[in-house]
């Protein structure tokens, strides 16, 4: 597969690993936050951590849209499917995420709710065209990457007059979340979380460009390297970050130039701006209310806004009390710090979102951490990522 296999080459990986070892041989520790779950996934799936020196630590960030969706919004989606008798379409990622009392979409489906997994917003539109007597709601989640396809569907629905289609919008914005993490007391004042630099989002940046990150490097004096999701991209970007840290620089560098340019995809941006506007605040699981961190549907397209079409009830949404997903998403705690981890909470019986998504830190630790514990001689040599 062109542009994929080359970026998984073993030979280059060994060379980069040697270069990283050399660059990091300074006697200090390096804490690199990979914002995106895509990076987390690559680090675990390819065993990138195994090739890193012990003093280079990956701190997993909140960049997994499944993980950061607050329970309340998931409960709303379940309510739409169950109480308002809509045909709810969503991406496969959301099916198993537990809501209040562990109620997930897959359980609602088992109880008779009509919930369909789709691959694309185009599929949701198709279902709406084929079922003119039903109300079709697309449960939209995702960052800037996934937002433009939702906008296209809404514009198309208006053009074609597909009146039985609406969108339950949960699209969120990455720069707002990064800023929130950097401003959090744990990072800024208390120093309980050390972040020396960021591996910046790759596919989000294909849409928004590399410019939005300039602010962080100036304001917070932390380097950012926009990094592709293949394992060599992660290694090369880590090397670039280490160099910046060692040289005392804090710039936005772009390792993923094959897809990301400074201004991003202008056409996609204008389509998003046509349909969506900023919410003044939005709740993120783990981060709490984050100002200007999410999008809602503009009045001009209000007819396609499921929140307006169906009066959603006030509800008492509750996370499992001792679930540490929130702290884990902020990088404050490790999955192994959670009392539920590996006992009542496993991928088979997830209590929190971080155990569901294949990009979630808990799911990754569940497999990787156990592997580590089975390899004592190795973990003592290299250490486990923070």
């Amino acid at each position, binding site marked *: 597969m062109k542009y994929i296999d080359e970026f998984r080459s073993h030979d280059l990986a060994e060379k980069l690993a040697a270069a990283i070892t050399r660059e990091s041989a300074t006697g200090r520790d390096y804490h690199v936050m990979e914002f995106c779950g895509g990076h987390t996934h690559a680090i675990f799936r390819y065993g990138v951590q195994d090739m890193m020196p012990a003093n280079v630590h990956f701190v997993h960030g909140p960049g997994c849209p499944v993980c950061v969706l607050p329970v309340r919004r998931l409960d709303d989606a379940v309510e739409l499917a169950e109480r308002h008798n809509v045909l709810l379409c969503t991406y496969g990622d959301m099916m198993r995420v537990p809501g209040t009392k562990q109620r997930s979409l897959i359980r609602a489906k088992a109880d008779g709710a009509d919930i369909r997994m789709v691959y*694309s917003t185009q599929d949701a539109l198709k279902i709406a065209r084929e079922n003119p007597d039903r109300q079709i709601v697309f449960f939209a989640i995702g960052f800037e990457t996934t937002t433009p396809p939702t906008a296209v569907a809404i514009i198309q629905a208006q053009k074609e007059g597909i009146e039985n289609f609406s969108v339950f919008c949960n699209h969120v914005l990455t720069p707002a979340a990064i800023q929130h993490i950097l401003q959090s007391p744990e990072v800024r004042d208390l120093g309980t979380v050390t972040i020396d630099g960021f591996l910046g989002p790759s596919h989000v940046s294909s849409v928004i460009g590399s410019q939005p990150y300039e602010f962080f490097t100036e304001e917070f004096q932390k380097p950012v390297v926009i990094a592709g999701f293949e394992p060599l991209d992660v290694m090369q970007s880590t090397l670039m970050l280490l160099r910046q840290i060692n040289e005392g620089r804090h710039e936005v560098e772009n390792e993923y130039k094959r897809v990301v340019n400074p201004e991003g995809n202008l056409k996609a941006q204008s389509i998003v701006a046509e349909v969506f506007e900023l919410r003044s605040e939005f709740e993120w699981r783990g981060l709490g209310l984050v100002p200007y961190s999410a999008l809602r549907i503009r009045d001009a397209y209000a007819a396609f806004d499921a929140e307006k079409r169906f009066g959603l009830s006030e509800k008492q949404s509750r996370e499992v009390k001792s679930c540490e997903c929130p702290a884990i998403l902020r990088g404050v705690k490790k999955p192994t710090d959670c009392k539920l981890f590996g006992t009542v909470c496993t991928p088979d019986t997830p209590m929190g979102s971080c155990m569901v998504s294949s990009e979630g830190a808990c799911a990754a630790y569940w497999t990787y951490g156990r592997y580590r514990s089975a390899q004592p001689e190795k973990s003592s040599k290299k250490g486990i990522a923070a």
Partner: protein
Amino acid sequence: MCLALPARIISIEADGLAVVALEGIKKSISLALVEDVTVGDYVLVHVGYALHKVSEEEAVRTLAMMAEAGVLSEQLEEIEGAEA
């Protein structure tokens, strides 16, 4: 997050759709979010939409940069080895 893959456009269809190929897998996608793409181009595909063209030139450059980092590291190793 955001599973997206580079795939080659093999035909452009009506209604802003195109067919892309990844090895022998062919899938219909929407071109609504990109401009100026033609058959033969590689595009980044996410949830059934092309998000961005993939630049061959930049891909080659990035791979060269990776190889160089390794080579540089090896050379430094040798120099230091000789000094020691």
